[in-house]
């Protein structure tokens, strides 16, 4: 296997695809070895990107290169490899910082993923600041990972979880949000993009309204970071979380961004090595940011792989990716809507990446099995958003979700597959 040349160079020269207005999706596809395979004898059509994305060769190479050339424990040794590993790990933090337009690298905390990031905030900021009678606001379209950590916190503290309702298109009702905001509100937690509906929430406005009441906002960016330009300072988000594996990086790594002033005032999450500056049996002094929140040997390989993935996205250009996925989504919306029996779940005016639908009266699980036989991978079920399913009166949906390598031809294959489903159930 050839090892790619130094893939850590942040914002390297733009690839031809990004330099030219035309986005060459066929060329992009060649960066992803897994896409070339056949499934059940048919070319793989991978439309489950909201669940997890495939990895470009560069990410795989960066991980192998790390183990071949740099592996040692970080922040510890005086030896050369430890220095190299530390440098690679901290360089990845810098890439993530610039990717989010955070003010400082120490505002980037490496975590296992979005779920851990939210739990971290709930268990530190939340437990430190929320008392009985307080309220936390979430929305009706949240993923379970942005519901349950707050429920647990509310239960422990005797606080109340308030939920911003959504309309029939799957958009937040902002007037209701404004009514919920008040002196009891201690935190707002909102998804940037809904994983079940594809709705893009007006996060800038949500933050603005919360800040007028002095309330901080956590943004779950798991579905937004791979698809939209994220600028945490532009949004003025207090916390922003995303997962590596949904943005073409490895599993088990993600980022929690937090404003320095908030992170500084928060107690640590987990105790252990690396998060301390001195330990005695009488007293332990905690390390400074970001290490205060990174107890134990971190997921070095993951962070480095994530750095390579973010660089890959930068090279293609996030604006190009947004435009490409929008083209595929608009085409898919049109084609799937025309399939007899199809009903879209989530028709927000601002939407990205996700096409959720039902094909009545056929159950989504049956759709999933039949499409799989055609080589087409979609997700069926409640998408870890059971309250959304209840809101729309369906037990489950079929969901096609797009990535930077999907094509209109793959949408055509999906539609052919759906017609096959209808034949089986005719």
């Amino acid at each position, binding site marked *: 296997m050839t090892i790619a040349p130094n893939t850590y160079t942040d914002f390297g020269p733009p690839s031809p695809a990004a330099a030219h207005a035309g986005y060459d999706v066929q060329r992009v596809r060649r960066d992803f070895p897994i896409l070339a395979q056949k499934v*059940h*004898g048919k070319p793989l059509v991978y439309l489950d990107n909201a669940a997890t994305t495939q990895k470009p060769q560069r990410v795989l190479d960066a991980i192998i290169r790390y183990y071949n050339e740099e592996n040692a424990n970080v922040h510890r040794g005086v030896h050369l490899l430890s220095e190299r590993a530390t440098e690679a790990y901290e360089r990845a933090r810098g890439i993530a910082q610039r990717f989010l337009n955070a003010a400082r690298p120490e505002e980037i905390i490496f975590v296992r993923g979005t779920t851990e990031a939210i739990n971290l905030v709930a268990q530190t900021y939340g437990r430190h600041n929320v008392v009985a009678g307080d309220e936390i606001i979430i929305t009706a379209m949240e993923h379970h990972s942005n519901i349950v950590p707050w429920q647990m916190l509310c239960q422990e503290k005797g606080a109340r979880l308030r939920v911003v309702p959504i309309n029939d298109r799957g958009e937040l009702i902002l007037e209701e949000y404004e009514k919920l905001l008040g002196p009891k509100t201690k935190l707002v937690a909102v998804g940037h993009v809904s994983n079940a509906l594809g709705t893009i929430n007006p996060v800038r406005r949500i933050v603005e309204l919360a800040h007028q009441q002095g309330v901080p906002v956590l943004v779950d960016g798991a579905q937004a970071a791979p698809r939209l330009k994220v600028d945490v300072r532009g949004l003025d988000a207090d916390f922003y979380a995303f997962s590596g594996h949904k943005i073409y990086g490895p599993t088990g790594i993600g980022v929690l961004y937090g404003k320095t002033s908030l992170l500084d005032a928060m107690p640590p999450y987990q105790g252990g090595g690396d998060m301390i500056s001195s330990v005695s049996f009488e007293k332990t002094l905690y390390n400074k940011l970001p290490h205060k929140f990174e107890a134990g040997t971190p997921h070095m390989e993951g962070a480095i792989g994530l750095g390579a993935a973010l660089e890959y996205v930068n090279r293609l250009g996030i604006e190009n990716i947004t435009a490409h996925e929008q083209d595929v989504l608009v085409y898919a919306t049109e084609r799937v809507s025309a399939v007899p029996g199809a009903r879209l779940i989530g028709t927000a005016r601002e939407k990205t990446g996700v096409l959720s639908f039902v094909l009545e009266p*056929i*159950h*989504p*699980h*049956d759709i999933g*099995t*039949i499409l799989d*036989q055609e080589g087409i991978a979609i997700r*069926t*079920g*409640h998408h870890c958003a*059971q309250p959304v*399913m209840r809101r729309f009166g369906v*037990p*489950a949906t079929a969901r096609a979700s797009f990535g930077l390598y999907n094509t209109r031809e793959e949408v055509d294959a999906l539609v052919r597959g759906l017609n096959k489903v209808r034949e*089986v*159930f005719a």
Partner: protein
Amino acid sequence: MADLRDLYQEVILEHSKQPRNYRELGDANHRAEGYNPLCGDHFTVYLKMDGERIQDVSFQGSGCAISKASASMMTQSVKGKTLAEAEKIFERFHKLVTGAGHNGDQEELGKLAVFSGVSEFPVRVKCATLAWHTLHAALEGKQDTISTE
């Protein structure tokens, strides 16, 4: 390659569209709920037991074609059977859909043998067995919702 027609046999499709014994049983003396959190399938199985014998059985709920057809055909196959006989059928059925059965079992299962194709689709085994697990829970008098996860 597994063939879709092995899974979605005509009999199965027909039962999924027009499930038998699909109603609440007013005089049921046993009932249980079954839930598959993976796909949201949710069924209630009602039983009227006369001693050891299943005098009447019905179900209600929602689910995919496989789970609904399985529930429908289950009610037909266990009505009038004793508790021990019903458990025996479930045992054979489970072996059939997980691919652990023998040809002899298929004959004994009668109509239920149409579910043999499920064994080629391992992720669908839970769909085919949800109603049966729920029946089992109802027979044992468990009140909690049973879950396939």
